[in-house]
């Protein structure tokens, strides 16, 4: 984007791959209905089908939080890199 003479930072970095995985995981888990369309094991009388999906609400929240933290760190690192290069 910027035409500063600094080295072009790679668009795909390991951190960004992790972020992408965090965001893609809920899709894989939730759209693969066959993996959880069953009643056993039950949890407190609630069939697997229901508690498993509700558990995924929590898992996906955690994953999004991780993605958010990583993304912020990534952005900050880039910003300081940029600032350092221009000095």
């Amino acid at each position, binding site marked *: *984007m910027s035409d500063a003479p600094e080295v072009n930072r790679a668009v795909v970095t390991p951190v960004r791959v992790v972020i992408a995985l*965090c*965001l*893609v995981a*809920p*899709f894989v888990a*939730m*759209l*693969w*209905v*066959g993996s959880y*369309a*069953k*009643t056993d094991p*039950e949890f*407190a*009388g*609630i*069939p697997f*089908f*229901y508690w498993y*999906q*509700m558990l*995924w*609400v*929590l898992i*996906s*929240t955690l*994953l*999004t*939080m991780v*993605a*958010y933290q990583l*993304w912020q760190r990534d952005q900050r690192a880039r910003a300081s890199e940029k600032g350092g290069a221009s000095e």
Partner: protein
Amino acid sequence: MKDGVNGVALAVFIIFFLAVTVMGFLAARWRKAEDEHSLDEWGLGGRSFGTWITWFLLGGDLYTAYTFVAVPAAIYAAGAAGFFAVPYTILIYPLIFTFLPRLWSVSHKHGYVTTSDFVRGRFGSKGLSLAVAVTGLLATMPYIALQLVGIQAVLDVMGVGGGENTNWFVKDLPLLIAFGVLAAYTYSSGLRAPALIAFVKDTLIYVVIAVAIIYIPIKLGGFDEIFTAANEKYTAAKAGGLVPPEAGQWTYATLALGSALALFMYPHSITATLSSRSREVIRRNTTILPLYSLMLGLLALLGFMAIAAGVSVTNPQLAIPQLFEDMFPSWFAGVAFAAIGIGALVPAAIMSIAAANLFTRNIYKDFIKPDATPAQETKISKLVSLLVKVGALIFVLTMDKTVAINFQLLGGIWILQTFPALVGGLFTRWFHRWALLAGWAVGMVYGTIAAYGVASPTQKHFGGPAKEIPGIGEIGYIGLTAFVLNVVVTVVLTFILKAAKAPEGIDETKPEDYTADSGDAGVQVELPPATAGASH
């Protein structure tokens, strides 16, 4: 169903309703800016909302009274298939995380209030922008109507909806009053009113759900009993079940995915998003919004509880209000009904504001009066928000309830067809504007015809959201099939149009606009000075 009016419940309901009404009018003074006549002020609350208000606003807006009535109702009627709402809301957050901050940035840089504004700016096409605006309006109106259906269900159970033989005016009077109040404070306070009331609504709903999910299972003898009773009912009725059958799994997954993709195409979701203070507010929100999904999952289980509690209603929409009335002491039933009722007012207000913004910016200003002043824009928006609500009211009062639900179903299919132009446009300018328009048209036509052709035991047309996917042979969500067709047409035509060197249109945005945050040059400018200073 018990006869007569439930006096205590009704009194509690009315007290809450009055409190909320006063708040609605006072909201105009909350975080007030100097220039109250701009559309930014009335329609986006000055774009100054922080994480928590945005959270309440988004939650208030996405999890509507209708959701709270309809999701458990679907479970009550059909079992597992109705639970798709949970994976649907799970999938929303990674999606928001990915594209909404970009929309926030570009909108704040260029002063876009609606998605159509963005599409016009990005593709330089008034036609495409009009298509997006019209789709948004078409899809929003039945959604507002459904909120009124939600209030009606509560009123019915409280005994103030009137019987079959009361005169229509007496029967509909409570709904008319609720509606009048809603219209009046939206008109005077704009987006600030629902934002403030959303606090009350969410608090009430959390309390009600927390109590319901603990109290009702104890009364019914635990979840074991509840699910056993539910299973017996589904087996006896030979409909539904505790897990979706093999054949229903495609439907389940495609409904979840299609609905998740569609949700943030709705004008009202975008309104709530753009009113936030910074793009970080949006990302931070994706980490706290899932609380609502958890609530929705728990709420869905109420459908099973209604079965176990022996609630027997012909209209499944009444199952949950009836369950509350049967299970709770009267005063708490009143609180629960207030939660549903207020839960209908908040989204109805936000939706009508969003529809009004859309009309004013993308139809009135683009096609009718290009030189409208900001004060005129605000005036038209206020009027349209009123008209939209009156339209929804007429819809509910004159037509069968299933019609509202059918149109809402169509609305979801339609709104999904604006996805390629909006989200595609946020990431790439590769798509050709005419190709996007053609793809949109194909998706709209296919979706409408396919939905028309779905019959159910009670209806000849618009009987459900799912149909056989051509070429795959599984039953899937029509909206998603139409969306795939839409994308295919768009891509193929883009290649052809590019080869033919068709004019591309002018893109007024720059790549860095999509990552700009508050504080960057050019971003603050749109904020009215007083609001920008007051936003802490």
